[in-house]
């Protein structure tokens, strides 16, 4: 056989090899998906079925379909490229054998070696992946991974060398070296050089669901969060701060606007944007002052704050309804391995630095992206939110379980473990800010958007009288689900002024009644900004010491929509979908939002409460009496039978004023009763 005939034969064989490889890789994906389903016990299809069960036409928007098609096309293209690499790797082996059987065996061996490498690497980097079953074997050890990678890379380069001219091969190798070197050298840390000395950086760091009682300043002794504790020990800490509503989007909107939800219009997560006032005065004013304004968040499933709210840039995964579907499907080795690489931002925008896809989420990567996005020559306004503490409490590296902490409460156990992780992330982020000089002159707020309830015994509100037999829910799982559950409403809020990388604020724990809506008026005051005539804040300027605390301050909170399927220790996503999906629609831009007509009707179902000193007065739409809670001794009372000294008349009057005119407020006409009492308060 002449060499020309041999080349022709090889060429035909390579084409066939490519098709066979593609077919085998598709089979590989199908097998993995089925295996995953076998392990998890839930399938993507049942998830989609749950969505489509309730008027699926509301979900078939162009935006959503585009997002899904893009994801699946990328997935196919990546596997096609992988098939090409495998095929090329077979080329030098085919030259070793003229026997077709041996060629087929060489091909099959190469495919299996590639699959083993990808599965091993997936198990090594992402051991919590359901297809990371090689995690506890020698095949996920670095020496195996490096050895096999070198072998397969050598085969690929040899195949490439045989395919193209020498010059092209040299160019290919040089390009690869330049790209890798460029990527590695981009790790140099830039340093902030302020061009406007009168404009400090403004940094608001939010930590999702962080409960004050798990931190040292409130007496926690288990040292779960040393870095947060250290920061708070050099800050002014506002004890008894409440979130206007225990949901991330609403809480952040309240913080950024300095207004209660009733004023700015965002009453639920995924609120219809046309019903929300997106004007954020601070962002607008600082944009005018030459600031770079950035909103960063590592989970955007329920929080759609973006450039339309005035920010110059947004860091984080892409927001959209496709997020949930893609995250349910995505656990495949090739996707996982690419997620924390720079190309992932383009290839998998819904998965990149997305905490909701916990098994690959790398907090350090998110930090790096946020820090890299900040301006080094302009002052920055940065609002950043870390979601590690949010349900479902999954993470890239599984927690190091401490049996001593296990008390049978799944959510609380993992929550405690993840506090350590978010504490690390916070510490690393603050270090990054310092290294880049961004804390040389900065105002820093540390907040949490809401608390979280785990129905711990120590959190229970009690009633020692016969009233306790009434069907009143005094606690609930999660956040935003019950205003009487104090752990859902209480949040962390601290202020610190940084000069030359160090806090210059005197540490003081300021005791009073505060709200997240106080952050904006405080910033306006410190930055000497002024609102325009048609704007106002509901919040107050935060005091700098205990002597300046307004002791007559009332603070309002409200609940989110009642959802039975999330008020449980075990949240079944399909049940949640079945219960809630009919309330949402997907817009043309691919974003899921609440249907406007349902949005209004759900406002009527809100629980509302007012805090005053150590008291809370709550009005619940499903309870015939008003509920008075003593937050100090954790006792609740029916107001109708209450005989104590609590200033409930004043509180009820305030609650009625604040909620006056709101949809469905006061169905039992309790506010009319207050007229009788006003002027006769205790």
């Amino acid at each position, binding site marked *: 056989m002449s060499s020309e005939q041999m080349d022709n034969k090889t060429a035909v064989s390579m084409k066939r090899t490519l098709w066979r490889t593609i077919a085998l890789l598709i089979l590989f994906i199908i097998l993995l998906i089925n295996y995953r389903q076998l392990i*998890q016990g839930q399938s993507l299809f049942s998830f989609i079925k749950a969505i489509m069960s309730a008027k699926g036409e509301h979900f078939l928007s162009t935006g959503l379909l585009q997002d899904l098609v893009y994801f699946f096309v990328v997935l196919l293209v990546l596997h096609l490229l992988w098939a090409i690499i495998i095929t090329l790797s077979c080329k030098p082996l085919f030259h070793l*054998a003229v026997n077709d059987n*041996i060629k087929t*065996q060489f091909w099959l061996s190469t495919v299996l070696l590639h699959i083993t490498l990808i599965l091993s690497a997936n198990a090594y980097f992402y051991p919590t992946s359901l297809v990371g079953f090689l995690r506890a074997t020698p095949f*996920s050890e670095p020496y195996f991974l490096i050895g096999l990678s070198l072998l397969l890379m050598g085969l690929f380069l040899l195949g490439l060398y045989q395919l193209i001219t020498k010059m092209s091969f040299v160019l290919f190798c040089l390009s690869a070296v330049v790209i890798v070197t460029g990527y590695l050298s981009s790790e140099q840390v830039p340093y902030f050089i302020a061009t406007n000395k009168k404009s400090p950086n403004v940094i608001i760091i939010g930590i999702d669901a962080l409960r004050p009682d798990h931190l040292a300043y409130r007496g926690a002794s288990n040292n779960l969060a040393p870095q947060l504790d250290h920061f708070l020990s050099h800050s002014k800490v506002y004890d008894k701060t409440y979130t206007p509503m225990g949901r991330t989007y609403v809480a952040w909107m309240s913080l950024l606007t300095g207004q209660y939800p009733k004023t700015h219009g965002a009453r639920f997560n995924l609120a219809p944007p046309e019903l929300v006032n997106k004007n954020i005065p601070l962002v607008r004013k600082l944009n005018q002052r030459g600031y770079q304004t950035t909103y960063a968040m590592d989970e955007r499933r329920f929080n759609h704050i973006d450039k339309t709210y005035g920010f110059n840039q947004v860091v984080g995964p892409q927001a959209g309804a496709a997020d949930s579907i893609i995250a349910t499907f995505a656990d495949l080795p090739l996707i996982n391995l690419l997620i924390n690489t720079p190309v992932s931002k383009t290839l998998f925008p819904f998965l990149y630095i997305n905490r909701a896809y916990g098994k690959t989420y790398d907090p350090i990567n998110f930090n790096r992206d946020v820090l890299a996005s900040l301006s080094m020559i302009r002052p920055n306004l940065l609002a950043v939110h870390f979601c590690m503490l949010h349900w479902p409490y999954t993470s890239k590296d599984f927690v190091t*379980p401490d049996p001593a902490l*296990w008390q049978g409460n799944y959510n609380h156990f*993992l929550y405690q473990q993840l506090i350590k992780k978010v504490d690390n992330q916070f510490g690393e982020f603050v270090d990054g800010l310092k290294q880049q000089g961004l804390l040389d002159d900065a105002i820093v707020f540390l907040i949490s958007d809401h608390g979280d309830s785990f129905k711990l015994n120590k959190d229970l509100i009690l009633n020692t009288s016969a009233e306790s037999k009434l069907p009143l829910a*005094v606690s609930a799982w999660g956040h935003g689900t019950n205003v009487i559950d104090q752990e859902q409403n209480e949040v962390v809020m601290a202020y610190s002024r940084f000069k030359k990388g160090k806090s210059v604020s005197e540490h003081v724990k300021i005791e009073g009644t505060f709200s997240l809506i106080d952050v904006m008026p405080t910033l306006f005051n410190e930055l000497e900004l002024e609102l325009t005539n048609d704007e106002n804040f509901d919040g107050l300027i935060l005091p700098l010491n205990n002597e300046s605390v307004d002791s007559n301050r009332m603070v309002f909170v409200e609940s989110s929509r009642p959802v039975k399927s999330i008020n449980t220790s075990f949240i079944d996503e399909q049940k949640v979908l079945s219960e809630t999906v009919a309330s949402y629609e997907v817009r043309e831009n691919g974003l899921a939002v609440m249907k406007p007509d349902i949005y209004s009707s759900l406002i009527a179902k809100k629980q509302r409460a007012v805090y005053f000193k150590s008291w809370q007065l709550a009005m619940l739409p499903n309870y015939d009496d008003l509920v008075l809670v003593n937050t100090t001794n954790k006792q609740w009372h029916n107001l109708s039978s209450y005989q104590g000294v609590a200033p409930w008349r004043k509180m009820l009057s305030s609650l009625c004023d604040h909620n006056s005119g709101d949809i469905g407020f006061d169905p039992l006409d309790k506010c009319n009763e207050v007229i009788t009492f006003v002027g006769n308060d205790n």
Partner: protein
Amino acid sequence: MVIKIGPFFIQWLLTIFILLLLAVNIVPAWYDYQTKVAIKSETSSESSLAERYISRGDWPASKDNNHVINHYQQYLIKTDKTDIKTRLRPVSE
């Protein structure tokens, strides 16, 4: 270079190699499946930390730490009986 000597021997070697590669992947996958079956409880809400974590779509172990799987009975979840007692009455539509 063309291999001309002992093609059957090469084929046998390659066949063994392929079977070995298949075993390398299938055996650990089967082991994980068996583990999942072993820790499965009657109801998903009254299970162990490991089982519930898996039902969320993640495997509860790191490379070096399979503690909550190997000792899953040390991590049994207590039923939340207060769910029933404190359930809210439904709000009328």
